[in-house]
């Protein structure tokens, strides 16, 4: 039973890690129907920014919590700026072009950012300081769950709640929903579509940056390539949950995390990915638009 619980918690953490990245994917897709492949790189840039800021602040002798807060804030700001700029440079000029063009542009952006960080920083793995403090009260349970895992779980829940609130109950959220339903019509009734899309990218990038800081500090190492693998898994999770749906992204991520964890624990980690993808295919056969996705009929 203990073993089951450990695997359950392990899967939950892994799922939350995916979820922090998947939220941004699903938001952008919901609004402009674009799979933003550069999203994983935003996550990676967030982690790198935090690493640099944390390095400087550690030299100045700040305390751990202050470093965590400041590093996260700088990472969020910096990544949001990246998200905003990427949209303006790479996606906006292609908004009227076929969807495939924007997709290629997204892949290009992803490769560009990876190689940019590779050249500007290093190809080596870098140690990432554990910015999340080790809580005293968790020490007796350290063999089951760590402080950083608890922080990731709570953050994921809070970010999901905030995003849901933003979309359901605010003015900009209403504008987002309107843009998602019908961009041209929203424009006709006076919604500033460009602003809505910019805000979506900024918010999505901010969540990715938070993910970057927390996950890197949990794992303890980063390099220029982490965004790619994490991004692919998060994308799968978003599709599994129903792309475009915020609770769907979280649910899909958790399902993927548990699938991998239990399969590794009870069967074998050799075919972990194979099994995860078979599971994805099965779900998509029976629910083509994902677990929580609404099936949309194409408007004529």
């Amino acid at each position, binding site marked *: 039973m203990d*073993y089951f619980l*450990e*695997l359950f918690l*392990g*899967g939950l*953490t*892994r799922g939350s*890690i*995916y979820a922090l990245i998947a939220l941004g994917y699903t938001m952008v897709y919901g609004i402009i129907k674009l799979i933003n492949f550069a999203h994983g790189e935003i996550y990676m840039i967030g982690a790198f920014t935090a690493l640099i800021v944390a390095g400087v602040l550690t030299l100045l002798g700040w305390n751990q919590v202050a470093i965590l807060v400041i590093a996260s804030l700088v990472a969020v700001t910096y990544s949001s700026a990246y998200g905003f700029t990427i949209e303006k440079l790479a996606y906006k000029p292609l908004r009227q072009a076929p969807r495939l063009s924007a997709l290629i542009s997204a892949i290009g952006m992803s490769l560009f950012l990876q190689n940019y960080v590779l050249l500007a920083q290093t190809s*080596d*793995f*870098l*140690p990432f300081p554990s910015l999340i403090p080790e809580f005293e009260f968790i020490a007796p349970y*350290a*063999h*089951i769950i*760590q402080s950083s895992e608890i922080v990731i779980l709570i953050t994921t829940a809070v970010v999901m709640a905030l995003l849901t609130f933003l979309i359901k109950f605010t003015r900009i959220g209403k504008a987002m929903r309107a843009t998602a339903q019908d961009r041209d019509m929203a424009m006709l009734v006076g919604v500033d579509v460009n602003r809505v899309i910019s805000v979506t990218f900024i918010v999505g990038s901010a969540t990715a940056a938070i993910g970057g800081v927390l*996950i890197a500090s*949990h*794992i*303890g*190492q980063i*390099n220029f*390539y*982490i965004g790619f*693998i*994490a991004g692919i*898994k998060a994308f799968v999770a978003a599709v599994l949950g129903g792309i475009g749906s915020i609770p769907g992204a979280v649910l899909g991520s958790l399902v993927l995390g548990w699938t*991998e*964890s*239990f399969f*590794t*624990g009870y069967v*074998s*980690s*050799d075919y*972990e*990915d194979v099994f995860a993808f078979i599971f994805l295919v099965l779900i998509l056969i029976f629910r083509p638009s994902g677990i929580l996705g609404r099936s949309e009929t194409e408007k004529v």
Partner: protein
Amino acid sequence: MLRQRMQIFVALVATASILMLGGTGFAAEPIRLGVAGPHSGDLASYGIPTIKAAELVVEKINAEGGVLGRKVELMVEDDVCKPEVATNTATKLVSQKAHVVLGHICSGATKAALGIYKDSKIIAMSPSATNPALTQSGSYPNFYRTIASDDAQARLEVDFALGTLKLKKIAVLHDKGDYGKGLAEFAKAFLEKDPRAEVVLYEGVTPGAVDYSAVVQKIKRTKAEAVIFGGYHPEASKIVTQMRKRRMKTIFISDDGVKDDTFIKVAGKYAEGVYATGPKDVSKNPMAIAANEAHKKAYGADPGAFFLNAYAATLALLNAIDKAGSTNYDAVARALRTQYVDTPLGKIRFDDRGDATGVGFSMYQVRKGVYVEIK
């Protein structure tokens, strides 16, 4: 490409000038040492240092009067690391009457060429071919090497875990890659043959995954006393960190993919106590220092891959001919197996299968943030 061509050109000119010196002094038939390996193409960087090593050794020996009073002559042939080219290279060296061959470099090319040398009773010695079967299959009694075979690290890991640490329950993990999985398979095979040990877990982990908590829990459940991991440092540091954070004291033993300073940098305090095998430290060997210096003086750069192995192989071959008193196949083979020779890799001879004794890997442990060789 142009630079490689230039290097080959320089190498050829250097070889030619040695030949001219040789030709003027002695009438006796020279000892012909074939040097085969990739000297052009994308793997040339593996083969060219061997030519340079052979040149430096031969230059020195010829200046001291040669071997058995005969000058040594190099015959450099390119095999581009391709088995189908290597058979031609070997045929050419045989037809030009090479007495012994230094090479080849890649395991596949070496295997293809060995049959041809065997039929002509020519001894070949590789500084770099690590495929275990080359010596262990027994098919190539004419083959020797001055590098440890691929399974040597696994052998050392297993001997260390069972012999030195006296452990019984071992989990074997790998990263599913050629290198890591290959090592893990050898380690598993050695453990299964040994009645002292029990393999409680054998599994591959997905490289680059965000965390390995499920695998770590699995290790914990099997109550393994040690993990033998085949792979590289990014995965190793994640696994070690997660084990230590979960208060697991499981011993971690790995290979030279982990014996890398990045591992210590990334895993930080959690790296403490980790064991890893790595090539024996020869940086304090006076012959190794001298050989590296000579290379720097002659070519103005640090030596490349397998330079010291090739240096040792050339010395071993020429020493065996000297001790045997002739280039006769059986006499030279006997000398290689019985006579010790001082090389940059230490004092070596060859065992019955053709592997150099005393060449290979040592066990290292992370102590106070650095890898320390365990004697």
